């Protein structure tokens, strides 16, 4: 149904190669998330799959059929854009029906599909409004509605929630996950939100400058990052990376320890330092610890009740079994 394969795909804009040869397979029904820093080529990759950009070389296959030069409309994919890209002069109903009208479907079938999509997305009351009269979250739902009525082989989302406020984002995140549970259609989702990537994905693809750094399930990436880049990118707050004698003592060039894997105590511990900023989130507290002699700042995550303050002298003890070791080449080893 919706297996997408990229085979040595490259993309250049003029002389600049944005995507060097890239291989990737997205299995049918999988929820795949592309993450990476800004400008790393996530949107470009998505647009290549959608057919909105031509590949410079390589092959894209959808369901084992060569789709490299198939026009976007014929690929059977639906895309949800960051700006929603709703048609402002059409009512919500006509927006959702647009792809079906273009496919010359008969009116009864169009009505049936639009109504069922509206029901799924709670849009029933808004069908006769224009997009301009809707809130951000409602617009987002219309955009998703326009995508699902086509019953596509796969959905492509380009940062669909980045224009929404935090509360709404959590809600829509759940809705999209639920939609995926129900439809079981392949979804490719671009984001640079850690939480979205970790919570929604079956598979995360970490990109840097057009190169895939690692592919794996969220927990795989969290537990066994392949290299320093992935280690630093996945997880929030970021993993502490420490070089020097502490690392050499453990036979590595660099060691990494996540903030949640360090214990904070007043009494004796492996390392010591001075609390800089303490961020109290209620459930957790993040301490930014200085003067440890390890790295400029060590971030530590402690329970919400731990009450150290700026300037306090504290002791830190990492959990030895959860320390990641990296070689001089940046790769992780056991």
């Amino acid at each position, binding site marked *: 149904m919706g297996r997408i394969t990229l085979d040595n795909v490259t993309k250049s804009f003029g002389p600049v190669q944005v995507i060097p040869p890239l291989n990737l397979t997205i299995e049918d029904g999988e929820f795949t998330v592309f993450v990476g820093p800004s400008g790393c080529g996530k949107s470009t990759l998505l647009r290549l799959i959608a057919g909105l950009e031509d590949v410079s070389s390589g092959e894209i296959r959808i369901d084992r059929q060569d789709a490299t030069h198939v026009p976007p*409309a014929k690929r059977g994919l639906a895309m949800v854009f960051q700006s929603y*890209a709703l*048609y402002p002069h059409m009512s919500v109903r006509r927006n959702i029906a647009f792809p079906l009208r*273009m496919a010359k479907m008969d009116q009864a079938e169009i009505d049936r599909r639009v109504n069922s999509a509206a029901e799924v997305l709670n849009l029933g009351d808004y069908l006769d409004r224009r997009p301009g009269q809707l809130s951000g979250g409602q617009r987002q739902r219309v955009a998703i509605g326009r995508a699902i009525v086509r019953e596509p082989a796969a959905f492509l989302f380009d940062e669909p929630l980045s224009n929404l406020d935090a509360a709404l984002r959590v809600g829509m995140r759940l809705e999209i996950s639920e939609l995926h549970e129900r439809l079981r259609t392949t979804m490719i989702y671009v984001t640079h939100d850690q939480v979205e990537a970790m919570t929604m994905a079956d598979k995360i693809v970490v990109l840097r400058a057009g190169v895939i750094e690692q592919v794996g399930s969220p927990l795989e990436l969290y537990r066994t990052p392949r290299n320093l880049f992935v280690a630093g990118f996945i997880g929030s707050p970021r993993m502490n990376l420490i070089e020097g004698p502490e690392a050499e003592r453990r036979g590595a060039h660099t060691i990494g320890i996540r903030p949640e894997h360090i214990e904070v105590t007043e009494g004796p511990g492996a390392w010591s330092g001075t609390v800089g900023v303490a961020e109290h989130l209620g459930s957790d507290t993040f301490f930014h610890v200085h003067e440890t002699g390890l790295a400029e700042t060590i971030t530590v995550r402690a329970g919400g009740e731990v009450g150290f303050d700026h300037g306090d002298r504290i002791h830190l003890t990492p959990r030895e079994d959860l320390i990641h070791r990296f070689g001089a080449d940046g790769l992780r080893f056991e």
Partner: protein
Amino acid sequence: MATQHSRSAARFMMAPAVILLLGWMLVPLTMTLWFSFKKYLPLRGGDLGWVGFDNYVRFVSSSSFWPAVQATLVIVLGVLVVTVCLGVLLAILLDQPMWGQGVVRILVIAPFFVMPTVSALVWKNMFMDPVNGLFAHLWKAFGAEPISWLSEASLFSIILIVSWQWLPFATLILLTAIQSLDSEQLEAAEMDGAPVLKRFWYIILPHLSRAITVVVLIQTIFLLSIFAEIFVTTQGSFGTRTLTYLIYQRVLESQNVGLGSAGGVYAIILANIVAIFLMRIVGRNLDA
């Protein structure tokens, strides 16, 4: 600018401009109304006293009145259709990335800078002249009989000349409108399976509707009073006598100021009727 004090200060400072504009408008308007009720023949006795609605009745019952109204409307409508259609096409073309875009855009805008009198003379003498005009040569090259444009296809020729002048204006406004279209909308439509023509019809054209409304409104206001193009080409003959031109003839050629003024008042009424119609038809595009 919201306090009582700043508002009265603003009023005070705007007063000179407002008074000047009011005077500019009211003085000619009142004089036109004043003369339209008089028999006033500057070279044949001057002011011959009040005549009531005589001038109004005579102006409408003259055999040239309805043809003039018709010629005016034909020219206005013709030019509107040509400029909007070609304007949309040109705007889409100019929006495509191409080599020498800057120069091409300036060339497209250029006709707008040419004075109406000059451009009409250029068209008359260089293109439409039945002996030496470019069109005549073109026709002869194909073995056809040259057309004397301004007498045989006079209305069409005037529409052509005026359209040529107003096309840049329409193109410019429509181009800026096209450039403000979110490209993701077009991409979304492309993914939704809309081919080029449907994208134009369902996405681009509705997006342009507001700009087209503006073009139609502004052009209508100016086109109702075109004069120079007719003055230097046909002089109002061959069915090109518009209302404006008829009034001019009444006042200056027949030296009948009263009759001309009555015509002026009719022109004002006609312009308002057209404006109300336009507002009704297209005005709702503006508040959407």
